[in-house]
């Protein structure tokens, strides 16, 4: 039996994870925390005299609220033994984003959660969701990457990706911890029914046109939010710590993904893109909006998920594609197979 804490449960991936764990009978209690008010989707979970799901607003980037959370009576009574760290979605760690303790918020949150997970005696298992954009992407339209592929430690990487790398390395450092079993799941672009896209440095964030590199159309590995939730569930029941790539069955070019998610992608020559990106950095604009000249706009990757198949017994069970909705419009849909 598990009692779990889910961070950023008010955001789409967190919501999906809470929903999946709610239907898992081995999970007795779910403490969900997030920045905002409880999502409407939780109404059914939060009802009843002794709900299995409790929700609270906690600013995970600051020490005091996180400390209060891990020392709270509810946390202690629930005997939480598993922490699921769902990161902040979208382009949060860009220049100008909130900085906590000198770090981008996402990095500060990862540090706080891990530190308190290590210090709390009941917590024995930590599952962290990371991004697969931490890898150094070799030249080419599509390259296969496995867990031992090199990380992109180039100091020139965009701030958004650098925060992912920082988070990754924070958890990576505790993978061999004897007391706390740390599982790090690296996921590529996450899509959800309706055309929503998360964790992609180019497409995530508010809808609107994007600028991409002319002459390049990199392949993007996709995974549905349902498969991510299934992978998290598999990870909390697994007793194998480690780093695992998680991906779905589909991989499509960036232009197709932009079309599926209803974002216009305007191709620009490389030189112009570099100039625009540098100018945007100077004025503090988000790279996700104006584009950046990073390798992720030129080179694509797909993920080798054999380790997750072998150790976590995870297999993607959702297909992603366009389907005609009731109003006749084609929309991105995810369907179980």
């Amino acid at each position, binding site marked *: 039996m598990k009692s779990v804490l889910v961070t950023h449960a008010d955001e789409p991936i967190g919501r999906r994870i809470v929903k999946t764990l*709610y*239907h898992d*009978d*081995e999970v007795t209690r779910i*403490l969900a*925390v997030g920045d905002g008010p409880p999502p409407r989707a939780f109404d*059914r979970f939060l*009802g*009843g005299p002794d*709900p299995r799901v*409790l*929700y*609270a*607003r906690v600013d995970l980037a600051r020490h005091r*609220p996180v*400390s*209060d*959370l891990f*020392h*709270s*009576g*509810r946390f*202690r009574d629930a005997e939480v033994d598993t922490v699921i760290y769902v990161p902040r979605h979208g382009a949060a760690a860009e220049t100008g984003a909130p900085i906590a303790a000198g770090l981008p918020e996402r990095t500060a949150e990862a540090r706080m959660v891990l530190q308190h997970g290590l210090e709390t005696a009941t917590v024995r298992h930590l599952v962290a969701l990371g991004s697969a954009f931490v890898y150094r992407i*070799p*030249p*080419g*339209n*599509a*390259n*296969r990457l*496995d867990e031992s*592929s090199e990380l992109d430690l180039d100091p020139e990487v965009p701030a958004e990706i650098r925060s992912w790398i920082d988070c990754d390395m924070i958890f990576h450092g505790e993978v061999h911890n004897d007391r706390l079993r740390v599982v790090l799941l690296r996921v590529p672009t996450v899509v959800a029914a309706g055309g929503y896209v998360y964790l992609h440095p180019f497409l995530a964030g508010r809808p609107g046109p994007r600028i991409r*590199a*002319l*002459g*390049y*159309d990199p*392949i993007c590995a996709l995974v549905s939010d349902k498969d991510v939730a299934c992978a998290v569930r598999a990870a909390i*029941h697994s*007793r*194998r710590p480690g780093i695992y790539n998680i991906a779905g*069955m*589909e*991989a*499509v*070019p960036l232009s*197709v993904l932009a079309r599926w998610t209803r974002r216009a992608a305007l191709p620009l020559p*490389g030189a112009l893109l570099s100039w625009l990106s540098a100018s945007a950095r100077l004025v503090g604009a988000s790279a996700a909006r104006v584009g950046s000249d990073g390798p992720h706009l*030129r080179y*694509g990757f*797909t993920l*080798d998920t*054999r380790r997750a*198949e*072998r*150790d976590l*017994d995870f297999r993607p069970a959702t*297909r992603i*594609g*366009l389907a005609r909705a009731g109003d006749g419009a084609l929309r991105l849909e995810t369907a179980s197979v």
Partner: protein
Amino acid sequence: MTEMLPGNGAAGEDLGDEEGGARALGRDPFADLAEPDPFAEKLELLERIPRLRAAPPPRPLRARRPRPRPAAEEGEPPPARPLHRRWAATPPVAEVDLPEPRGLVDRVLGEHQRRVLASLGQLVEGEASYDRYGFSPSVMRAAFPAFYALYRLYFRVKSSGHENIPSEGPAVLVANHAGLLPFDGAMGVVDVSLHTDPPRLPRSVVDKWAGTLPWINVFYARAGQVIGTRENVADLLDDGQLLLVFPEGMDGIRKPITQRYRLQNFRVGFIEHALRASAPIIPMAFVGTDDQSPILYDVKPLARRLGLPVAPITPTFPWLGPLGLLPYPVSYRIVYGEPLRFHERFGPQGADDPRLVRYLANQARRAVQSLLDRNRS
């Protein structure tokens, strides 16, 4: 009996709650849950009005029946389960349902070629129509007539030894590389696709430099070529696919006319991967490619300055501009040699011995050189 020390919970310091446990420190973020519902009073008022009764509270979802999980003891994790890998496969040409001819592509190609394309199209499943390396059957179908015309009319390819290509499972075609522009790879792909049944799509392993070129990198990927990284090659062989490698690399295409039909040093990575994946190595010789763009001189300082692998001077380049890079209409002859089954003798552990790997790479080089020498005459 433990003595209570002042400051550690002695008299006067109540650190326990009602149940006797440790008291929660700080503000409980879940404490808000215990506060009275501000809407409760209004709901009571609403419930007194029969016609405007408030909606019942949402019913908690019913949990599913628990899935039986194998009972496991804490401590050592269970042993990892072996993966069942399904090899990528295409249906035999005779079993392919051929749709009615439509469009220019179908009019240009014969029935066999259309059947081959239809069979190769089944390598990719699902909505996306791209495999994990960006291969797109629709792009291949659109580009195939042009390359087939080059194959039949321009290079007039003749080939032999197809029986040496295994019909399934991992295998590595090892070939010589020459001719400035990699038409040898394209002709090799067309030849293998047309002469294997079920049709096999050889995945040409290309240099990383090609992956940096705009448009070229996209076309290569859509046509089924892959960049030669360790992960790509290992994954493809593990998936039972057929690789076409040019172990000479860039040294092959920039060799001068004086080195014609003389193989350059082979890289060794393909041997390591073939041993690990238990894949046979099939020597493959392209006769004619060394004559398509004879390089008189390679201006290496210029190539370095421009970031190019080669800055050639040929009888036609740069005198005719970019047109001078086009290959001469030489006749190709493609020969497949007998498979070298190094894995049967040395096993996967042989890949860890650098001297053995170098020796086997030289053996493969000799086999290709021997094929070249025999068929040139």
